[in-house]
C-alpha cells in the first residue's frame, strides 16, 4: 500500500512540475522510477511512455478543441516521429541499460541548459491550459533562407497568420525526436517545439500544442514495442500514471499564479543532480 501511494505521489509531483515548467513529465518519471524505486531503466522508459501518452492525449484534446494545434502539420510530422519511435524502440532493446542511462544524463543536462536559456520566458504548459502567450518573435513571412514555393505542400500545412517553411528539416528533426522519445521515454517536445518554432516558422503556442498532439502517436508506436516486448510493468504504471495525470491537471490550473523563476532554478539544480546519478549508473 505504502509503495503504491509513494508511486502515485511521485507521479503527482512529476505531473505538477512538468505542467508548471513546460515539460511532458517523462524527464522526471524515468529518474523517479530508476533512482527512487530501483525499476530497471528500460522498464522505467516503457512506464514513462504510457504516462506521457495519457497526459498528452488529454491535453491534445483541449488544444484541438481550442484550435490552437495545427492538425495537418501535426499529422504529417507525427508520421516521421512514429517512424523514429519504432526505430528508437528497437535500438533501446539492442543497447545496454548503462548506455541508455548515459544518454539520459545527456538529455538532462541539455534540458537544464535550455531551461536556463528561457528563464525569462513564460512557460508553455503542456497540460490542460496554455499558461502564457509568449511573444512569438517570428516573422510571418518565415525565417530567412530557403522558402517553399507558393502553393507547395508546405502551404497546405500553414495556419492563420503564418506559413510553414523548411519542411525537409522538420521531417528530419521529427525522425530524431521520435528516436529520442522511444529511447529515453520522453515526449520529445524539447526537440519538436524549437524545431517547429525556430526552424519551420510556427508560432510558439501552436508549436507547443502541435508537439503535444504528436506525442500520442510517437509514444503509441514506441509503447507498443515496449508492451509486446514485456517491458511495461502494469503494476507500477497504474499508480504512477494516475498520479501524473492528476498532477498535470493540478499544475495546469495553478501555473498562471506561480512565479516560475525560482522554481526553474531549483528544477535546473534537480536536473543536474539527477544527471550526476545517471552518469554514476552509466559508469557503474
Amino acid at each position, binding site marked *: *500500500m505504502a*509503495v*503504491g501511494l509513494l*508511486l502515485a505521489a511521485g507521479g503527482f509531483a512529476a505531473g505538477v512540475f512538468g505542467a508548471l515548467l513546460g515539460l511532458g513529465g517523462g524527464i522526471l518519471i524515468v529518474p523517479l522510477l530508476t533512482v527512487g*524505486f*530501483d*525499476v530497471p531503466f528500460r522498464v522505467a522508459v516503457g512506464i514513462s511512455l*504510457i504516462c506521457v*501518452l*495519457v497526459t498528452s*492525449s*488529454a491535453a*491534445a*484534446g*483541449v488544444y*484541438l*478543441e481550442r*484550435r490552437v494545434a495545427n*492538425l*495537418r*502539420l501535426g*499529422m504529417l510530422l*507525427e*508520421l516521421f516521429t*512514429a*517512424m523514429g519511435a*519504432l526505430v528508437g*524502440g*528497437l535500438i533501446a*532493446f539492442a543497447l545496454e541499460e548503462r548506455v541508455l542511462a548515459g544518454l539520459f544524463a545527456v538529455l538532462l543536462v541539455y534540458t537544464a541548459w535550455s531551461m536556463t536559456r528561457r528563464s525569462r520566458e513564460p512557460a508553455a504548459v503542456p497540460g490542460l491550459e496554455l499558461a502564457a502567450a509568449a511573444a512569438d518573435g517570428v516573422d510571418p513571412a518565415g525565417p530567412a533562407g530557403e522558402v517553399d514555393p507558393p502553393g507547395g*505542400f508546405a502551404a*497546405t*500545412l*500553414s*495556419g*492563420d497568420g503564418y506559413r510553414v517553411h523548411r519542411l525537409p528539416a522538420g521531417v528530419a528533426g521529427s525522425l530524431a525526436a521520435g528516436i529520442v522519445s522511444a529511447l529515453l521515454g520522453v515526449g520529445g517536445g524539447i526537440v519538436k517545439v524549437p524545431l517547429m518554432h525556430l526552424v519551420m516558422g510556427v508560432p510558439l503556442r501552436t508549436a507547443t500544442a502541435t508537439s503535444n498532439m504528436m506525442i*500520442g*502517436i510517437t509514444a*503509441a*508506436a514506441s*509503447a*507498443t*514495442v*515496449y*508492451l*509486446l*516486448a*514485456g*517491458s*511495461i*510493468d*502494469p*503494476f*507500477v*504504471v*497504474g*499508480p504512477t*500514471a*494516475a498520479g501524473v*495525470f492528476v498532477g498535470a491537471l493540478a499544475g495546469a490550473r495553478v501555473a498562471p499564479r506561480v512565479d516560475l523563476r525560482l522554481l526553474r532554478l531549483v528544477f535546473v539544480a534537480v536536473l543536474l543532480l539527477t544527471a550526476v546519478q545517471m552518469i554514476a549508473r552509466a559508469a557503474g
Partner: protein
Amino acid sequence: MTARPAGGGRLEHRIARILWTGSVASILLLVAGTLLLLAAGGSPVEAGWPAFDPASLVPDLVAGRPAGLLYAGLVIAIATPLLRVAAGLVAFARVGDVRMVAVNAAVLVVVGVAVAVAGPLGR
C-alpha cells in the same frame, strides 16, 4: 491557406472527444486495477508481473483481475491516438484529400509494423 482539414472544426471537435474519452477511460481502468491490486494485498513493485497476453485480456477484465484492468488501461491508452488517426483518415477521405489520407494510413502502417516486429522481442 489555413490548416482547416474538413468540416470547419468538426474534425477537431470529434478528435478532441476521442482523446479526452480515451485518456479518462484508461486512467479509470489503471486506478481500478491498482485499487484491486492493493485490496488483494499486492504491491506495485513486486519481483515480477504477468506477461501481456492479448488472448487473456478480456477474460481477465471480466473476472476483475488487477492485471486485466491494468493491461486494458494500457491498451486503451495506446489505442486512443490510433483512433484519432483513423478518424482523421476517414474525414480526409470524405473530402478527397488524398495526401492526408496517405499520411494517416502510413501512420497506421508504421504502428502495424511496430506490432509485427516487437512480438519476437517478448521476454
